[in-house]
């Protein structure tokens, strides 16, 4: 397969760790999640995949969400778009987009929020495009259903511009998905995601099916269009090494909750939550090559989560309190949100 990628990445690849958006009082979050609960009803009872999750996303911010598989990342992503399928359901909470609660919108209104306001770059790069439709038609049908109609000539041009924007040759428009490589397909998915200039882009493991080189290209393409659009991005992944290089702020998820959410530099400098510390310690460092230290213990059952902190049985510093009282996510230090009883506020 010929790669029709235009190589524009090198120039952009470096500027990944640029300015951190300082949350000042006059900037309102573009997306705010409050006490979100999502469960999957099973015969054995509800699996509480997301349990009282809250966070804020600032305009133009790139927020990473990392956590082991099963920690509820994809469930959260789908819940933000209100795309949780039965047996799953959003039990309670608020998802505020620019102050408007998405959970109270009608299905019809919500449909127009998708892609136009919040776009998704989905997990499976290999299978995200309809195999029987040309790329062009898969870009244009979204416009049509959002009430946007261009003449033939103009829509061709817009498709071409869009493809060039994500580093593809315009003639990709006439191809079918199976004629593209994995990286090219994921670029197309990004092109679709940005086609209506959304304010929030949710990328759920956008590189999971790709090889390492392509992974970096895709991440930098995503960062480039994010900068162009001035959109806020939630980048979901389980590789915190890769995430650390791509985002400004990183949220660590554990058992359906955020354990810690801090600016990346500070988190790696001084991890606060014991889980974060163990995750960062388990990363292979240059001096002890390939030495991956696992974290002892297993994740708790989401069917019957423990009454206190979900991490307490794996935590070497657990207090008496940790087994009974769920720690709230609080700003323990400036800009650092931590859900742990070991820290007292402002200390």
């Amino acid at each position, binding site marked *: 397969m010929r790669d029709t990628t235009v190589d524009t990445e090198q120039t952009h690849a470096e500027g990944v760790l640029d300015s951190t958006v300082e949350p000042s009082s006059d900037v309102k979050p573009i997306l705010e999640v409050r006490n979100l609960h999502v469960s999957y009803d099973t015969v054995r009872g509800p699996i509480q995949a997301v349990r009282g999750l809250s966070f804020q996303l600032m305009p133009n911010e790139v927020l990473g969400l990392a956590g082991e598989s099963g920690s509820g990342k994809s469930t959260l992503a789908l819940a933000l*778009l209100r*795309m949780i*399928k*039965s047996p799953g359901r959003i039990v309670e909470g608020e998802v505020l987009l620019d102050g408007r609660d998405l959970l109270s919108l009608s299905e019809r209104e919500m*449909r*127009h*929020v*998708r*892609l*136009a306001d919040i*776009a*998704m770059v*989905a*997990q*499976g790069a*290999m*299978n*995200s*495009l*309809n*195999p*029987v*439709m*040309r790329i062009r038609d898969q870009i244009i*049908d*979204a416009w049509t*259903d*959002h009430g946007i109609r261009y003449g033939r000539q103009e829509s061709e041009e817009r498709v071409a511009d869009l493809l060039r924007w994500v580093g593809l040759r315009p*003639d990709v428009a*006439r*191809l*079918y998905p*199976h*004629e593209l490589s994995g990286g090219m397909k994921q670029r197309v*998915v990004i092109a*679709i995601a940005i086609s209506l200039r959304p304010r929030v882009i949710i990328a759920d493991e956008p590189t999971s099916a790709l090889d390492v080189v392509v992974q970096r290209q895709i991440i930098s393409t995503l960062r480039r269009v994010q900068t162009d659009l001035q959109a806020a991005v939630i980048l979901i992944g389980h590789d915190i090494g890769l995430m650390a290089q791509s985002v400004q702020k990183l949220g660590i998820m554990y058992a359906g909750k955020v354990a810690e959410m801090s600016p990346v530099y500070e988190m790696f400098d001084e991890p606060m939550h014991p889980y974060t510390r163990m995750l960062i310690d388990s990363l292979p460092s240059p001096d002890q090559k390939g030495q991956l230290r696992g974290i002892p213990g297993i994740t708790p059952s989401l069917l019957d989560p423990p009454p206190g902190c979900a991490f307490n049985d794996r935590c070497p510093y657990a207090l008496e309190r940790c087994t009974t009282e769920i720690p709230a996510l609080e700003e323990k230090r400036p800009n650092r949100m931590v859900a742990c009883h070991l820290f007292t506020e402002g200390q």
Partner: protein
Amino acid sequence: MRTNGRNLQGLEMPIEYVVRRVGLFFVIVWAAATVNFLIPRLAPGNPIREQLLQQVATGGAGATPIEEVVQAYEARFGLDLPLWLQYFNFLWDTVRFDFGVSIARFPTPVWDTLTYALPWTISLVATATIIAFVIGSLFGALLAWPRTPRFVHAVAPPLLTMAAVPYYLLGLILMYVFAFRFGWFPLGGGHQLGTEPSFTMTFMLDAARHSVLPALSLILATLGFWALQMRGMMVTVQGEDYVTLAEAKGLRPSRIFFRYALRNAMLPQITALALTLGHVVSGAVLVEIVYGYPGIGTLLFRSVQNFDYPVIYGITFLIIVAIGLATLILDLVLPFLDPRIKYSRE
């Protein structure tokens, strides 16, 4: 702007492919003809005489003068000729649709018995198959679609139960209720006794009235098959990432249903439909017999009863040609429905 035409344009069908595929069809037809030639000759002794004697023994031939038939057949097959010459004569006959004469209805040519029964069967079974396919597939797709209204789900159990009832039994029940009890439809046959098949309005209407119950039996009995298969495919397809992404694109539910889910779930259904349509010419033996319908199914049944081998071979040949034709059409159409299908031979 045609850069590297065939690579970029998924739908361009190469001529070599069409030629190769049509060639394959003729190979299939030739093989079928050869099998038809060999089978009677593999039996020890003179196949014609043996068959006729068998028939006399079972009393099936009745009034037909046996010796006359034997002589006619000896001449017809030229059984005294060398085998290779017989083979070429046979192939030449086949090319001209000359399958010999029927034993049970001597001296009617086999071809005439086939062409009399074929339109009946095609109009009944093909129509019923297509109706069952369309309704069944749509229904199955709806069953797997989360937005489908409740009442659709309520229709499912009885329909799926009906799929488990053998269709001749269903035929008998329908006949009892609607023909015998209520008298809304004729009890059987393809048309009013005493009328001759013609393309007049009255005859067509009469034939249509006769085909309602047999068609209904076939439709009701096969609907469940299509529905179940489609439901299974739709469930699979809805788990695909492209359906999730389609929803994330904010597409209208109807577009997601038709263009993303149904469109992909349909591909295996089309293959099954083509094969089923290929089998249409074999008739729906049991339904045709229950209703005394003058189609291929009834013809096949009677021919087997009467050891009417020429007709049986004729029908066998017809079925093989029809299936060959159906797969040929399928192979020519499918690349247009599924761009992933490759033309190369691998």
